[in-house]
Each structure stands twice: as C-alpha cells, then as structure tokens.
C-alpha cells in the first residue's frame, strides 16, 4: 500500500470517482471527480489534533461499528494517503460554521470548509477495472439471530475483534459482557450456495479457508479454546489449503457437517443454543456456544453499476463482470483496451486477486508497450452519390462520429473513422441506403438471408444476433451443451442496431416463417445506445407488418446477454413452437403481399425519377 502511495509513476486519486469515460482503445478520455476532502492531503501531517477536539462521535466503519470515530478522522493508521478527512455529513455544519474547532487547532491551516469537488480530465490508453466486492449482509437469515443476539457476529466483525489494531486491541471478547469466550462456533455458507431465494446460489470461494484461518488464529491466541465449524462442504482446494485445514483439525477444532436450522439465546448467560442435524451421523445435535460467527459470503459491489455502464461491460446472472472468454481471455473485457482484475470478476482470495491483477497489468502492457494498435476495418462510409442530405445518420450515431450534412448546400455528412465503432445503426436507419458498413455491407447480409431461407424456408427461424451479447449467448449455450431445436439459422451483425428493415422484410418475402432479432440488454449495449434504435425500428416493423396483414408475432425481439446461454436456448425452444404455428398459406400470402408491395415501390421510384428528369430537363 505504501509503495503505491509513493511511486513516482502512480498518481493517486482517493475519495474520487470516475464520472465519465469516452473514446476507444488506446485513446480513452476519462473524467474523474475528486470529491471534496476538506483537508489538504498534501499538507496534513496526521498529527491528530483536529480529531481530539472534534465533538462529534459516530460509529467507525473500518472497525465494523465496534468503536467510534470523529467527524474528522483517518480511516485507519496505515491509510494511504496518510491524511485526515472531514466527513461533511457528520460535521456539525459548515454553513454557517457552528463549531470550527478543528480548524482552530490545525497548525498547518489545512482544513478548508469551503473545499469543492474538482473535475479532472485525463487521457489514458488502457483501463483496468478492479472495483472489488461487497460482503453479504446476513440479516435476512433471521434464524441465526444476527440482529437479535449480541453474541452473533459476522466474519468481518471477527477480523476486527481479533486484530491487534482493532477496537479491543486484539482481545477477542464477546459483545454482551466483554468476556473472552471459550466456546465459539462458525456457520458456513451464510448467503452462499443457497437455493431458497435468500442469499446467492454461487459458492463465495473464500469463506471456508477464511474460517479455517480464523480457527487457527483463535487456537493461537487462546490455547484450549473450543471451536466448532458447521459446514455443508469444506472446500480447501488451493495450494497449501489442505495443510491449514489439517492443522486446524489437529488443534482440536471440531468440524460438524450440517447447517444449524435454528439459534436461540439463553437469556441468563447470553449463550447461544444451536440445533443441527449432523449429516455424517444422521443425528440431531444440540450445541451450546458462547459466541457465534456467521461466515458471510461475497456479493458483487452494490455501487458498481455506474462504472460497469461507463465501460459497457456485461455482468453474469450473479452480478459479477463477464470476461471476454472464461478460459482463454479471463482478464480481458469484451471491449478492447479494458481489463478486469480481482473480485469484480468473481469472489476470490488475496492470492488470486494478485495473480489476476498482474495478468491484467501484463495484458495492458502489451498495448502500452506497442504504442499503437489496429482497429478492425468495420467502420462506416458514405456513398455521396446516393446521399440526399437528410441528416438522420448524424442523429443516430451514438458516438457523434458523423458530422451533420447540410441540405441547402447539398453537403453530405463526413464520418470520423477513428471515432466510429462500427455498430451500423446509421446504415440501418439511412433511408437512401447511402451508408456502407465495411465488412457488414447490405449485400453481404442480404446474401446470407437469401442463402438461409433458400431450402425449406418454412421450417426455419431466421435469427439476427449481435456480436457481443446474443451471438456470445449462443456460444455460451454451446459451451454448456444446452440442447435446443435445430430450426434456427443465425446471422451475426456487430450490433442489433445494424439489422435493417429491408433484411427482415426480404426474409419474409423469401418465405421465412419467423424472424428473431436479438441483441444486448440496454445496459449492456456495446455501442452506448445503438440498441435503442433497434427497438424503435422493431416498433416500425411491427406496424408495417400489421398494415400489410402479416401476423406481427412472426417477428420477435429478445435481449440476450453473453452470459444468458440459458435464455438463448429457451428462446430457441419457444420460437420453434411458434414456427410450427405459421401455416404454408400464411407464408404464401406474405410472399404475395410483399412482392406486390415491392412492385408498387419500384413503380413509384420510376415515376419519381421520370418526374425528376422532366424537371431538370
């Protein structure tokens, strides 16, 4: 921690948040909000005079509320930067200043009640997100009595009680009477591996070994202490883990396979009585303990959504960040130039976090050392011959990469290639078909549509899937071997925003019974908000089909994320059933109607062209 604080190459922004991220790989523009600290961190010598005079005492978050801190405080003695901070929510008030005692005693005059948030802009080539995790709050497991009984604590609270730097200076005492307990129990998997709707279904990875460690600390501090661990499975799978587990057993820690169903407190002694079925012996056991530690699980960061959206990262169903590939690209985010490290990706211990962080740093170094990177040639281009200067493309572009056209001057728009990310929403919205998406051209996609609805079209479900989410969701279904009907025929586009009305109408004209458009959930869209255009376009298409007397439910829309292999397979199964309901007569009728419609449009075009020619003549 100290190293990073004094490293000449590291600029530290504490008490700060990332407010905005724009740009692309190699060229990110980041806005950081440095929140007001009210204490000049450079000048503060951490002399603690201010805290001595501060009249406000509030529970100390760092000590899990076991002790108090002042409104002006240092989070913990080794904090980096080593400076005080004034919490304005706790302060008696600065406007008007009601107290002002701390400023009076500060010899260096580094307290400033008028300190303001500051916005800093930086330019970076790569981003590593390591926003971490939160711990599970066991309140909803009411049978353990965490909120009712003083002597039931969480594993985080245990850490503070056993720590020499903690509120009790390392004396492990129980909250009710401040006596050192001799009989201590641990309940595992609190909020983890749960199927009953409370807590989370996944294994939190670290709690088994954390409890093993805790029992060893207890045995070390208080030889002869009686510790019992109630578990469903002990998972000691890492290097050196089994040794620790065995050591704990040798020290006399009892491991009971069975999760207590119920905890009651003896009102006299404040001891805790547990009833548990020992699943090894099959017998119901009762245990009396002086103190109980709930081994709480790990949950995704509760305030992590804003960063996730800024970086357009997807999350798995449990709320952790989705990596680019679970085996081959475990620290890369799907967006180029962004990497993931630590518990933001999944619950992990210190060693795994360090490993992943070094891996992320190494991956980031590849880009930084090269000093340049190639961008996929999938950007858009304007066909100036076809453009009629309507300006829709500029409006659609999520990246403002298209400069507005000028109708009066007949000036077509220009596209800033470096800013274009290749979603193709502009090409799909352009009424003149005047925008060409390199490598995802209309002709290329139309050719796929035609090829896929050529044989037995009446049986198949034509699916458009975006590269990032739905296509990857299909991959996810494959990796998990989730079986679904063979009827789907899939076309990949970079974004669902690329799916032009004419692709869908052409598929119906060729005899497709059903078309599915699928893309990222709104929050996951890799092109900021290109997916909004997909939804608007779908509304238009449904109205169009309705007008032509075509069943609207033959065109379906689903948002499927990269992690939703299950949903992908489910949608495929449901839509297969719906494909069966589309009759041959219906398809024939659609073909006829759309052919007529096309002929009409052609005639209109010709007439218009003729009229235009006459005018110019």
């Amino acid at each position: 921690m100290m190293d990073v604080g004094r490293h000449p190459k590291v600029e530290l922004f504490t008490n700060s948040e990332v407010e905005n991220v724009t740009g692309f790989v190699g060229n990110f523009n980041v806005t950081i909000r440095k929140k007001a600290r009210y204490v000049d961190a450079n000048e503060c010598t951490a002399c603690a005079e201010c805290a001595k005079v501060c009249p406000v005492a509030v529970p100390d978050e760092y000590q899990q509320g076991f002790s108090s801190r002042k409104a002006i405080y240092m989070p913990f003695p080794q904090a980096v930067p080593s400076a005080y901070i004034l919490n304005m929510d706790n302060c008696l008030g600065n406007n008007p200043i009601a107290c002002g005692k701390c400023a009076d005693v500060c010899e260096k005059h580094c307290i400033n009640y008028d300190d303001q948030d500051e916005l800093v802009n930086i330019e970076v080539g790569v981003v590593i997100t390591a926003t971490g995790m939160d711990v599970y709050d066991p309140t909803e497991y009411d049978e353990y009595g965490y909120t009712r009984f003083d002597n039931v604590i969480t594993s985080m609270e245990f850490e503070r009680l056993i720590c020499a730097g903690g509120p009790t200076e390392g004396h492990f005492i129980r909250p009710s009477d401040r006596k050192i307990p001799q009989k201590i129990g641990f309940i595992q998997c609190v909020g983890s591996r749960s199927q009953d709707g409370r807590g989370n279904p996944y294994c939190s990875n670290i709690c088994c070994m954390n409890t093993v460690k805790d029992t060893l600390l207890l045995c070390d501090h208080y030889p002869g202490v009686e510790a019992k661990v109630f578990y469903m499975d002990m998972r000691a799978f890492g290097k050196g883990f089994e040794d620790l587990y065995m050591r704990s057993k040798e020290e006399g820690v009892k491991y009971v396979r069975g999760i207590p169903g119920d905890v009651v407190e003896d009102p006299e002694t404040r001891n805790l009585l547990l009833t548990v079925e020992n699943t090894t012996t099959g017998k119901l056991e009762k245990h009396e303990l002086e103190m109980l530690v709930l081994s709480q699980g790990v949950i995704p960061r509760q305030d992590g959504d804003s960063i996730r959206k800024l970086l357009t990262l997807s999350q798995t169903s449990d709320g952790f960040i989705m990596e680019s590939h679970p085996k081959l690209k475990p620290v890369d985010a799907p967006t180029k130039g962004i990497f993931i490290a630590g518990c933001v990706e999944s619950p992990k211990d210190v060693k795994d976090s360090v490993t992943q962080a070094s891996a992320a740093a190494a991956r980031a170094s590849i880009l930084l050392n090269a000093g340049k990177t190639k961008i996929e040639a999938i950007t858009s281009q304007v066909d100036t011959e076809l453009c009629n200067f309507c300006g829709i493309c500029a409006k659609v572009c999520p990246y403002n990469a298209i400069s507005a056209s000028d109708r009066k001057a007949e000036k077509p728009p220009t596209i800033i290639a470096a800013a274009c990310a290749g979603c193709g929403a502009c090409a799909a919205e352009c009424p003149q078909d005047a925008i060409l998406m390199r490598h995802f051209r209309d002709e290329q996609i139309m050719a796929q549509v035609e090829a896929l609805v050529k044989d037995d079209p009446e049986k198949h479900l034509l699916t458009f899937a975006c590269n990032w989410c739905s296509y990857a969701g299909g991959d996810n279904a494959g990796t998990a071997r989730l079986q679904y009907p063979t009827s789907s025929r899939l076309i990949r586009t970079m974004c669902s925003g690329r799916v032009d009305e004419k692709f869908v109408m052409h598929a119906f004209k060729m005899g497709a019974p059903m078309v599915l458009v699928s893309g990222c959930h709104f929050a996951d869209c890799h092109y900021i908000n290109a997916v909004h255009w997909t939804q608007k376009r779908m509304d238009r298409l449904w109205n169009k089909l309705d007008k032509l007397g075509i069943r609207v439910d033959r065109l379906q829309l689903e948002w499927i994320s990269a992690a939703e292999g299950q949903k992908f397979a489910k949608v495929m199964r449901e839509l297969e059933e719906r494909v069966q309901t589309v009759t041959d007569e219906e398809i024939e009728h659609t073909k006829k109607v759309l052919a007529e419609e096309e002929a009409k449009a052609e005639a209109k075009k010709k007439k218009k062209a003729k009229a235009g020619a006459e005018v110019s003549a």
Partner: protein
Amino acid sequence: MAPKQVRFKCLMCGHEYDGMYDHENVTERSCPKCRSNSIRRLPDAKVAKS
C-alpha cells in the same frame, strides 16, 4: 416530446398493459407476465379502436 402513456402488447403471450413511453429516452421492455422482450408499442389509432 414529453413521455406519454401508451399501450404495450407482448407478442409472445399476448398480454397487454399500459406504460410510459418516452420518445427521446427509450427504455428496455419486458413482459411483466412472461419476461419476453417482444413488446410492441401499439399505435394510438389501434388503442382507440379497441
């Protein structure tokens, strides 16, 4: 354009419901009944008729 009340119809299960629609700020739709995302915003004329 201010957000307005519109009628949505799920094309998967047929469920119809009213919701707010903001032309400028489109939000993700999913059927409160079957979770499908095939939610059609019915045109005003159609709503008036039915």
